[in-house]
């Protein structure tokens, strides 16, 4: 977590437990849904978005500082959870930006409650099942393999592996892995029904993908853009799946340019 003066940290009380929320900036609200490995982090990417928007970044159930919410067992529960979060925060049709696992949640939210969101940005989103373009099984990857799958730049791989995690970090990763398995063990990080439902999305949508994504192949991005009515598609070159860590400027720029053009 950055110690930027703009950043705020708070807890949202819901009937099922507490949600840890990071926030920063002013302007139209952007609900940012983090990737499986991105809970509780306020990175350069968030900072860039917060220059133009009010960025609200909650941790998912079972992730980061948010409670377990054991009744949130599957993706449909998670959608209801985020409808609760939007209401509890008093947000009126926020922009929703989701990365990877968070992108899957964002897409499901946009399908289930199209009138609840102002716009949709998917960054390397999970959620589609394309048997001919399988998603890498991150549950079985050892740290070096995971680093290879996440980053395009070998320097980033080396940096990722140079830090020996302490026991707290190992336990936190185990907890989040367990939480992710609730939603994505099988079907693997996908809802087979999602693709045919994407036509229900009415919000303006932008799909952004890392050109060198080795975790979720770029074909998933093309499919999202093809099936979401009116969606725009942008690829970012020389970048791996950990897109907003590897190329924060480009991803923030594409996102803010798109959001700035959305008429709410």
């Amino acid at each position, binding site marked *: 977590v950055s110690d930027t003066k703009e950043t705020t940290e708070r807890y949202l009380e819901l009937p099922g437990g507490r949600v840890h929320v990071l926030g920063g900036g002013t302007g139209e609200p952007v609900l940012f849904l983090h990737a499986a490995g991105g809970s509780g982090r306020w990175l350069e990417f968030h900072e860039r978005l917060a220059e133009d928007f009010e960025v609200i970044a909650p941790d998912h159930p079972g992730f980061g500082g948010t409670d377990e919410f054991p009744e949130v067992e599957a993706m449909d529960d998670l959608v209801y959870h985020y409808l609760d979060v939007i209401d509890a925060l008093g947000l009126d049709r926020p922009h929703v930006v989701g990365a990877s696992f968070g992108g899957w949640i964002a897409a499901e939210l946009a399908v289930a409650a199209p009138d609840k969101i102002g716009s949709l940005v998917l960054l390397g989103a999970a959620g589609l099942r394309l048997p001919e373009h399988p998603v890498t099984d991150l*549950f*079985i990857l050892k740290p070096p393999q995971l680093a290879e799958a996440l980053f395009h730049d070998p320097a980033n791989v080396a940096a990722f592996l140079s830090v020996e995690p302490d026991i707290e970090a190992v336990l936190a990763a185990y907890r989040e892995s*367990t939480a992710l*398995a*609730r939603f994505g*063990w*099988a079907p693997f990080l996908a809802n087979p029904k999602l693709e045919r439902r994407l036509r229900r999305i009415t919000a303006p949508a932008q799909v952004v993908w890392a050109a060198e994504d080795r975790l979720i192949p770029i074909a998933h991005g093309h499919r999202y853009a093809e099936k979401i009515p009116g969606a725009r598609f942008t690829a970012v070159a020389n970048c791996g799946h950990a897109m907003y860590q590897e190329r924060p400027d480009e991803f923030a720029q594409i996102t803010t340019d798109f959001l700035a053009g959305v008429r709410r």
Partner: protein
Amino acid sequence: MRFVFFHLMPYPYLPDDFDEYPSISLTFPNKHFDRDLGTKLYHRYLDELEHAEVAGFDGLAVNEHHQSAYGLMPSPNIMAAALSRRTERARIMVLGNAIGIRGNPLRVAEEIAMLDHLTDGRLTSGFVRGIGWEYFAHSINPTRSRARFNEAHDLIIKAWTSDEMFQWIGDNYEYRYVNLWPRPLQQPHPPIYIPGAGSSETFRFVAEHGYTFMSVYTPVRVIKRWFDSFREISAEAGNPADPSAPGTMQHLALNVSGLDELLAIRDRIRDRGINVFGPLDHGLCHSIYFAGPENLALEVATSEQPIDARAWIDPEVVGLLGIDDEQLQAFKEPESFEGRGGTVPNPPIDWSKPQLNMPRELLEGVMSMPDEQVTAMLSEPIPPVAVEPQDTAS
């Protein structure tokens, strides 16, 4: 002591570079499985298991692994079936079925019930949670493993023992009609073994159900740590009906004043509908035996004469137990002990020593408090009914 011949049925014909693969399981290419050698292996391994009975083994054990050169038994029940009619005496031990991985645990209940009949009641039924790779192999969410195992177990036991059709609605399994045909031969069901790998949740499960815990292929020092932990948890869970050590009976003997009182006690217990046998004349005493609550073995005994230790301490048993002369003397004539006016404090809690069957936190609290505080906090000297003092003179 009983001996079990446990076959893992590995595939030994690996390529020279096998250890350059990340694992011998899950992803090890099945092109390395030679079909003809495989056929020969199954017959060889079953021949070995059958021969183990001839060689005198008491049990023949098989187990379950998936998608692995480590073990060629995705279904241990098929191997048990193959052995059932080719053997006569040894127990057929399925150690065990990975019930949480099976999509349909009722199928396991059915197959084990069939095997119990095929073996004429020689079947031992093990349940395992399975190693990590099995969950990848059968695409079962490993974070649900414990919950699935526990629920599958409860369902299987109920299916084996219920005389009435029932419905099962759980978090993991739902059946509108459970009505097992066949029912198992052994009553209430085949003995249950739980192979484990040291998790305290499994120890607690085994202790609470009074099953047999087992482990294999583990260094002795690790096994010792596991069994120490198992004993600690068993003591907390409370299992008076279980043997305190393999081959021994844990029981409590109460002394009465003579044979008349012994028979009066027998009458009294039998009058309450409880079975009692005896008296048996042990020479040193006469004893009757019966089961108390939770099936704890109880003995009531009486001695006409003081027991003569010189005659009744069996040198053979002393030798077997490894009791030396000094220890024996201490048992015969315990060193006298002068009290110190109640000033000896509680020693620190040592879980290898006998401990009262109380919740751990409570036990630690009570045993670490000053005695005066325990007396003050936990005493209840006031009787529940307030009465006038009785005039004992009249």
